[in-house]
């Protein structure tokens, strides 16, 4: 069973990386750019049968390790 997880910075938290990427894209001539935010992405495969249980497990991983809940939010999707 495979899940994708995206971890993004909370709304008002500074995103230095996104800022630099945005500036660079603009300098490369990409116009009409409104905003760029950068985050992390994970693909995790687990050997579980039960989707519910697996999802719960992934959620646990996010809370414990993958996301820093103080500044980040996360989203889980089965793929």
């Amino acid at each position, binding site marked *: 069973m495979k899940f994708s997880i995206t971890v993004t910075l909370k709304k008002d938290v500074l995103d230095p990386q996104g800022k630099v*990427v945005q500036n660079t894209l603009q300098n490369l001539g990409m116009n009409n750019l409104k905003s760029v935010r*950068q985050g992390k992405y994970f693909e995790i495969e687990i050997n579980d049968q039960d989707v519910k249980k697996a999802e719960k497990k992934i959620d646990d991983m996010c809370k414990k390790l993958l996301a820093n809940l103080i500044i980040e939010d996360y989203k889980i999707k089965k793929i």
Partner: protein
Amino acid sequence: MNSSVIVFPGSNCDRDIAVALKKMQFKNQMIWHKETKLPKSDLIVIPGGFSYGDYLRSGAIAGKSNIINEVIKAANNGCLVLGICNGFQILTETGLLKGVLLRNENLKFINKDVNVKVMNNETRFTKKYKKNQILKINIAHNEGNYFTSQNHLKELHDKNLISFKYCNDKGNIDEESNPNGSLENIAGIFNAKKNILGMMPHPERMIDSLISNSDGINLFSSLLN
């Protein structure tokens, strides 16, 4: 000999390399990344540091700057190009050198003196060293884990394009002496024409035995002629 050091926002070994070049009697100038022309130079150096904070991927954004097009032109015309640390990362991002520098295997920044072995001393960059000479040079990076395709690896071997490999103090190239997970302990490589050298260790930090040692000096003196 004329040298140019390219300065990006976030470069932080630019002064160090300038000091080394001056000490070795190069006529050096600093070139700001927004410039669109390179002065005539025999050697172009891309220094270490964190160009653009190393945000996105180390070296990626510097690889898209104005000046880098000039560097590519000069390199293709045979100019000598030396990329140290972040400079090596930038050279791989521009495609002047093949392969890529991934995160260190332990995911930590590593700063220490390591042993490296001179693998090819028949180049403009290394001729003052002895073959298989063991140097002690400082490394300081987050992404020094060299990786490349099997085809390119074969080319590196066939054409003798590996400049340095990490080793232990006896010269053995083994897993234990590999600080960052680099493929085959590779610490530095040349392009096919051997006018471009990218390396993770910092030779400019090793030019004064009162501070560290002088193992870096021969790299610069090799270049002098």
